[in-house]
């Protein structure tokens, strides 16, 4: 076997049955291989980082395993393409590793196939030795408060999908014609949304943000972004890297009420290191603003972002004509308990905050290292099951029995080679615009380009 690039860089040069866990017994594998010669066919649903890391582990640690990665989108990589912010290209470097995985002759990408519609899970279970569901959170929860249907109330998930070129969100085109926006939630996606709204447009122009998002953001009137949390500064969910980016955001200043941060340093002496350093940075930013040249520059900053704590949404307030958002009514909360498990309970007081846009969301969590470990762990557990005979041990047809089903149903799967044609097209279009790529957002156009 000598496929392109297979086995290179972070991969073992020799495929061999070796598990991460010291508890694993390579002997069991050898027995299995010598007696049954089983080729395990494994199906992974979803081509995001969890799916690819699971596939990577399976291919590396089982010398025969074949892995098919199903994806409902035409293109691979899930949240790495549609979730990671366009101004975080470094995080997308994992695509290089995933591409190496996809180039394995024992791995196939089956894009444009929706499991549950084009093929059922039970059909997949019949065809494969194991089916790994790594399709992420498909949750379309609503905010659940009056006024949420008003124009100007946006799901942050849809907004992220829109600026990242997710086909189902490409018609979102929000109206950013107001000076104050408010984001409900204090996680990394909240900071992504705030940062995309406030970053100087000439910086975004060099990213792979969609052309439509650039056009809308160029006309944005948003000057101030409130990032609102139900709990306090010791419970924020964003991580320090994203906070530091906000603090260093050019031409934006932080609006932090010193009263929210006084005395916090005494409370975090025993806290775990990440919480401690995060809180120290918040406190330092709120209570000890930078001096000199930098402070002068920031004082004139035309844009600002701020954190508001202990506020929970009650009602979206309409403009006088009822046509769009004019503000939001927030319940003032107080904390019961302390630390990570503190609960927010209403005090009975309310506060109205004027704003022309409201974002809310329920978002995926975790950083790439989390997903990587989860993916490897999934692969490891699966191999263990295989070894111990928990999974079916007889031969399975794998994709050869799914292919005719899809054909009969008029479904045309997209291969990884097809994706590489689209990739080249996106990169070429991007180059013309001075961007790393111009994402294609129309699935029909994508399918046409690859001759489907």
């Amino acid at each position, binding site marked *: 076997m000598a496929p392109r690039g297979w086995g290179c860089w972070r991969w073992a040069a020799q495929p061999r049955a070796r598990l991460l866990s010291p508890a694993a017994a390579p002997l069991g594998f050898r027995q299995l291989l010598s007696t049954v010669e089983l080729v395990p066919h494994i199906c992974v649903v979803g081509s995001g980082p969890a799916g690819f890391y699971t596939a990577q582990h399976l291919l590396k640690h089982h010398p025969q395993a074949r892995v098919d990665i199903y994806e409902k989108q035409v293109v691979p990589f899930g949240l790495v393409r549609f979730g990671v912010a366009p101004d975080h290209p470094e995080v997308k470097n994992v695509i290089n590793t995933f591409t190496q995985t996809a180039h394995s002759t024992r791995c196939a990408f089956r894009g444009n196939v929706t499991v549950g519609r084009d093929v059922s899970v039970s059909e997949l279970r019949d065809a494969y030795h194991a089916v790994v569901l790594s399709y992420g959170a498909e949750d379309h929860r609503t905010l659940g408060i009056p006024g949420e249907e008003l124009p100007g109330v946006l799901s942050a998930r849809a907004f992220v999908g829109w600026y990242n070129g997710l086909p189902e969100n490409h018609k979102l085109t929000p109206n950013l014609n107001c000076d104050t926006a408010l984001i409900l939630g204090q996680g990394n996606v909240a900071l992504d949304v705030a940062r995309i709204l406030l970053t100087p447009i000439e910086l975004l122009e060099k990213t792979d943000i969609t052309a439509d998002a650039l056009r809308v953001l160029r006309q944005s009137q948003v000057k101030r972004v409130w990032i609102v949390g139900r709990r306090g500064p010791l419970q924020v969910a964003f991580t320090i*890297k994203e906070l530091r980016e906000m603090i260093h955001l050019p031409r934006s200043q932080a609006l932090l009420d010193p009263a929210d941060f006084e005395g916090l340093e005494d409370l975090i002496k025993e806290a775990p290191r990440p919480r401690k350093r995060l809180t120290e940075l918040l406190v330092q930013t709120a209570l000890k603003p930078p001096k000199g040249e930098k402070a002068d520059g920031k004082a004139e900053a035309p844009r600002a972002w701020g954190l508001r704590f202990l506020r929970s949404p009650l009602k979206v307030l309409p403009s006088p004509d009822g046509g769009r958002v004019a503000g939001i009514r927030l319940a003032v909360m107080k904390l019961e308990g302390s630390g990570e498990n503190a609960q927010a309970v209403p005090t009975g007081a309310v506060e109205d905050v004027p704003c022309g846009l409201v974002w809310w969301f329920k978002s995926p969590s975790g950083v790439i290292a989390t997903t990587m470990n989860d993916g490897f762990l999934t692969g490891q557990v699966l191999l263990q099951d295989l070894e111990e005979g928990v999974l079916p041990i007889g031969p399975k047809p794998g994709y050869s029995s799914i292919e005719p089903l899809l054909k009969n149903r008029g479904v045309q799967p997209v291969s990884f080679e097809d994706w590489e044609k689209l990739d080249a097209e996106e990169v070429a279009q991007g180059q013309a615009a001075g961007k790393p790529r111009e994402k294609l957002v129309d699935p029909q156009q994508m399918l046409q380009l690859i001759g489907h």
Partner: protein
Amino acid sequence: MAAPGSVKLLLAASAAFGAASRRCLLLVGAGKPGRHGELDRGNAASRGASRGFSLSAPSRRSSEDKVTIHFVNRDGEKLTTQGKVGDTLLDIVVNNNLDIDGFGACEGTLACSTCHLVFEEHIFGKLEAITDEENDMLDLAYGLTDTSRLGCQICLTKSMNNMTVRVPEAVADARQSIDLGKNS
């Protein structure tokens, strides 16, 4: 199997793609790197070029520039290899195809913590000062210790010859034992 040429191509391509990797040799003249993430960002093309050069440079460097490093992998296996003074520990792992699962996912751009390594105390004390940005990423690392650093930020010096670095356990042990317990 692995074609060494494709490794080089991939690295050159990823550097040109805009990776803000630490390039020790390049930064020597520029004083203390500080926030090198920003420093490097506008410099991708030249870095890509210099990367290609350093990889394909003829071996006129004598063996005295070589530093021997021992990696203790997650399963306890010892991987011994050599690198050049100025290479990062991530470079060493990549250039020598060391089999460490998931190492260097962001390719040395300070956007993940997968190249986390644990150092011997006497070496750790002599390492270059850590930046806030590296600490930010270490906050999210599994199995953090008092002598933890990110391999992509550590450049080889002669005094590191024969040092041992340990790859910390990565998987969530508690959950693993539950999952495996269910099956047995």
